[in-house]
C-alpha cells in the first residue's frame, strides 16, 4: 500500500535507483517466481498463443497455404454471417438460453435451499441432498443418453407413457418448438441440487436469534421466509447474477451437443448456439475462418459483457468486484 503511494512522487533522477530495486525485487522473489513459472508458461502456451490465431477471422483460410499464405478478405466473413442470419440466430439462442438458465436456475436454487432449511430430519436431508447432487457428477455423454432414453420416438419412456394412455406419440427429435423446454428442464435437473449449496450455506450463516426474535414478535412461517430469509439471500443472488452475466455469450457445449445430436439440422433454429456452430465449422465443414469469426465476435462481446457486469458489481457491492 505504502509503496504504491510513494511511487508517483519519485523524481525522475532516481530512475536508475528504481531499476536497481526492480532487480533486487526480482532476486528476492526468485523462488516464488519460479513457483509461478509452470502456470505462467501453461497459460502462455494454451491461452495466449491461440489469441493471435483470431487473425483467421479475416482471411479465407485454406489448408495448403496456411494461415499467413491465405487470402486476406477483411470483414467478408462477418458480412456473410450477418447476411445469412446465422449470427443473429446464434446470438439470440445463446443469450436467451443463458438468461433462462441464470434466472430460472437461481430462482429454483433459492427455493430448494429454503425448503432444505425447513427439513428437520437429518437423515432425510442427507439422503435427498446426495440424490440431488448426483446429476452434476455424470458426463454430458450420459446426459445425452438419458435424454434419448426418455425422448426417443420408437422406444422412449415419454412415448411409452403416452401410448399406454391411448395418446399419439410425439416426434421429439424433429420438432424444434419443444427443445427450449427440454434443454432448460435438463439444465435445471442437472444443476439445481448442486447450485443450491451456495444459498443453503448462506442461510446457515443467518443468525438464529434474528429468526427467534421475529417469531416472538409474532411472525409466522411465510413472514419468516418473506421478510428475513429472502432479504438475507439478496446479496448472494446479486453477486451470482452479475458474475454469470459475464458468461452470457458462452454456451454449455456438452449439454447442447449431446442432447440434440451431432447433425440434426431440423432443430438448428432453436438449439444452435455459438459453441455448436464453431464446433461444426471446425469438425464437419472445415470452415476454420467462419468458426474463428464467430469466436472473435463471441470473445469481444463477452469481454464487453464482463466489463459491464464488473461495473455493476462495483456499483452494488464494491467488495466483490473482480478488478
Amino acid at each position, binding site marked *: 500500500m505504502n509503496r504504491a503511494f510513494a511511487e508517483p512522487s519519485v523524481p525522475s533522477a532516481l530512475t536508475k535507483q528504481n531499476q536497481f530495486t526492480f532487480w533486487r*525485487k526480482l532476486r528476492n522473489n526468485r*523462488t*516464488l*517466481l*519460479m*513457483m*509461478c513459472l*509452470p502456470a*505462467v508458461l*501453461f*497459460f502462455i*502456451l*494454451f*491461452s495466449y*498463443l*491461440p*489469441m493471435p*490465431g483470431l487473425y*483467421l477471422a479475416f482471411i479465407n483460410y485454406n489448408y495448403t497455404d496456411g494461415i499467413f499464405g491465405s487470402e486476406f478478405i477483411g470483414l467478408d466473413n462477418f458480412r456473410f454471417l450477418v447476411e445469412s442470419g446465422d449470427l443473429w440466430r446464434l446470438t439470440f439462442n445463446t443469450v436467451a438460453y443463458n438468461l433462462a438458465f441464470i434466472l430460472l436456475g437461481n430462482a429454483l436454487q433459492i427455493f*430448494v435451499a*429454503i*425448503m432444505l432449511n*425447513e*427439513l428437520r430430519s437429518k437423515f432425510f436431508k442427507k439422503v*435427498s441432498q*446426495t*440424490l*440431488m*447432487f*448426483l446429476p452434476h457428477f*455424470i*458426463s*454430458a*455423454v*450420459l446426459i*445425452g*443418453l438419458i435424454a434419448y432414453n426418455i425422448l*426417443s420416438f*420408437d422406444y*422412449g*419412456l415419454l*412415448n*411409452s407413457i403416452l401410448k399406454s394412455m391411448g395418446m399419439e406419440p410425439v416426434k421429439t427429435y424433429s420438432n424444434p418448438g419443444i427443445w427450449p423446454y427440454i434443454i432448460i428442464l435438463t439444465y435445471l*435437473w442437472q444443476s439445481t*441440487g448442486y447450485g443450491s449449496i451456495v444459498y443453503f*450455506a448462506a442461510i446457515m450463516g443467518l443468525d438464529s436469534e434474528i429468526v*427467534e426474535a421475529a417469531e416472538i414478535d409474532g411472525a*409466522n*412461517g*411465510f413472514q*419468516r421466509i418473506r421478510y428475513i430469509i429472502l432479504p438475507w439471500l439478496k446479496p448472494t443472488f446479486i453477486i*451470482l447474477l452479475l*458474475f454469470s452475466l459475464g458468461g452470457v455469450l458462452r454456451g454449455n457445449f*456438452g449439454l447442447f451437443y449431446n442432447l440434440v445430436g451431432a447433425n440434426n439440422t431440423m432443430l438448428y433454429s432453436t438449439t444452435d448456439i455459438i459453441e455448436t456452430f464453431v*464446433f461444426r465449422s471446425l469438425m464437419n465443414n472445415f470452415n*476454420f475462418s467462419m468458426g*474463428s469469426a*464467430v*469466436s472473435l465476435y463471441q470473445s469481444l462481446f463477452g*469481454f464487453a459483457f464482463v466489463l459491464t457486469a464488473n461495473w455493476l458489481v462495483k456499483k452494488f457491492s464494491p467488495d466483490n468486484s473482480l478488478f
Partner: protein
Amino acid sequence: MQASMNVRHTDRSSLIIRIVSYVFIALLAVSCLLPFVLIVATSLTSEASILKNGFNLWPKEFSTYAYRIVFENPELIIGSYIVTLGITLVGTAVGLFLVAMTGYALQRPDFHFRNKISFFIYFTTLFSGGIVPFYLLITQYLHLKDNYLAVLLPGLLSPFLIIMMKSFTQSIPHAITESAKIDGAGDFTIFMRLILPMSTPALATIGLFIALGYWNEWYNSMLFLSPDMKYRPLQLFLYNVVTSADFIRNSAAASNVPLRDVPLESMKMATAVVATGPVILFYPFVQRYFIQGITVGAVKG
C-alpha cells in the same frame, strides 16, 4: 434451551411450509434418481421387450444378455478404463501440485509480482482465441493429434482452481511463513513442508474437481483423438457406442451373435452402466468435499 428448540416454528403456516418442503424435496430427489434407474432397467431388459414396449422403469422381460455380450469381449472397455484412469491419476497429481504451488505463491503478501501474475492468469477467462486456433495449435504446432497428451495437458490448470487455492491458503496465517523464514527455510521448502500438510482439505477439494474433470472429459478427446484409436478415454468410447452401432455389431459378431439378434438398445445402456457405475458408487464418499469446495469457492469468488 431444549424446550425453546422444540417450540420453534409451530404456527400453522410453518407446519404447511414444512410439509410442502418434505414433499417437494422428496419429489426432486426422486426425479434426480429416476433417469439412472431407467438406464439400469433398460440394460436389464430383453431387446424384444424394448422393441415391443419401449423403455420402462422396470424391466418387463428381464435379461442379462446385453451384459454377457459386453463382458465376453471386455478388452476395449478395460482398455478405455485404463486410459481414463491413467489420464486422471497423472493429470490430478501434476495439476494439483501446480495449482497448489501457484495458488500459494500468488497469495503471499510479500510477493512483489503477485497482482501482475494474478491478472495475467485471470485475463484468460475474459478473452480467448476460441477453439479454432486452439485446435490448430494442438494439431499443427504441437503435433498432439491422437496423443493422450492432448487430453492431459490442457486440463492441468484452470484460473478458477488457482483462485480457489489462493483463497484457501489466505486463511493460513502469514506469520507461519515468516517464522519459518527466520529459521532459514526457503520459500519452496515452506510450501512443501508446511503449507501442503496444512491444506489437506483444500487439496482434497481441488483434487476432486480436477479428477472429476478428467474422468468426465470428452470434449478434448472428441477434438483430438480419432475414432480409429483403439483405446479411447471412457466417455469418448461411450459416445461412440451410443452414436454408432459399429462397436455393438462388432462385439456381437465376435460373440457369434447373428446380426438380427444384436441387442442394440440394451447394449448401449449396459455399456453406459459399466462406464459410469464405479463413479456413482464412489461418489457418496467424496460428496462432502465438493460441498466444502463450492462453498469456499463461492464465498470468496
